[in-house]
């Protein structure tokens, strides 16, 4: 169990890192993009916009802390 936990922890740190909200924000934006594309909206702009919002938000939080 200890090794499984350490393995999962490693991958969490590797992919998600210090601020889980960045990964969560990107996941939501990707889900919305798929949804909009399914409704014939060419939502190429959503991910770049989400990158701007989550990056600025994460930096704001860590520099205010």
């Amino acid at each position, binding site marked *: 169990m200890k090794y499984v936990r350490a393995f999962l922890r490693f991958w969490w740190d*590797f*992919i*998600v*890192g*210090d*601020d889980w909200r*960045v*990964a969560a924000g*990107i*996941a939501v934006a*990707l889900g919305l*993009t*798929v949804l*909009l*594309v*399914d409704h014939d909206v*060419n*939502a*190429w702009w*959503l*991910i*770049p916009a989400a*990158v*701007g919002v*989550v*990056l*600025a938000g*994460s*930096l704001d939080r*860590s*520099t205010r802390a």
Partner: protein
Amino acid sequence: MTTSEILIFAGAFLARAVEMVEALTIVLGVGVVRGWRSTMIGVGAAALLLAALVAAFGPALQQIPIDTLRFVVGALLLAFGLQWLRKAILRSSGYKALHDEDEAYREERERAAAAGQVQRGHMDWYSFTVAFKGVLLEGLEVVFIVIAFGTAHGSLGLAAAGAGAALLVVLLAGVLTRGPLSRVPENTIKFAVGLLLTSFGCFWSVEGAGADWPGGDLALLGVIAFIAALSFCLVQVLRRRRSRLVPVGAKA
């Protein structure tokens, strides 16, 4: 060679170079103090394992349909690249300390000298373990980048060549300088890698989701320009914020 291929080569090269600089510091610190034989066996074992990971996972992932692969790889690159970019912005704006190779080298030498004898047969297991772990852990991120870049664009060989070239350049520089590569602008390189990872992540995840970029493949350059401009603005804003908090004359 297309623009995308040049950027994939550059991304893998820069990521490998910056991680190798950190691994080199660890290897030098141990090797200089405790001897080279076991240290280099550790380096070789880790390098073989990293190459085996690329050889095993790269071709296997290429069997997945390209749109699914680009969506998943793009999403992972975005999450991963934003970590690099976020840390590089924090360092550039003075909120996070820059990595000091000279200090890391001194600490590694002190630890290697303080560690007792861990000799069994002809092997010094302390040197082997530290070198193996250092090269493996610094190299895992590069393996991820090489596999992601290589499979999503079908250029695994090119990405691996970029990483391999960087390995040779850093090793050669280490042999010539016989010390840690403290003058390498690590944060600038990490900034560039974060920018490329995030941009490719953006580009591929949108394509994988089924949306079309205006301008096709050329849009990648637009994405890079947008994220570079955004990062530059964020650095300026954070520097201004920090200058209001830190007394005049205080060091960054």
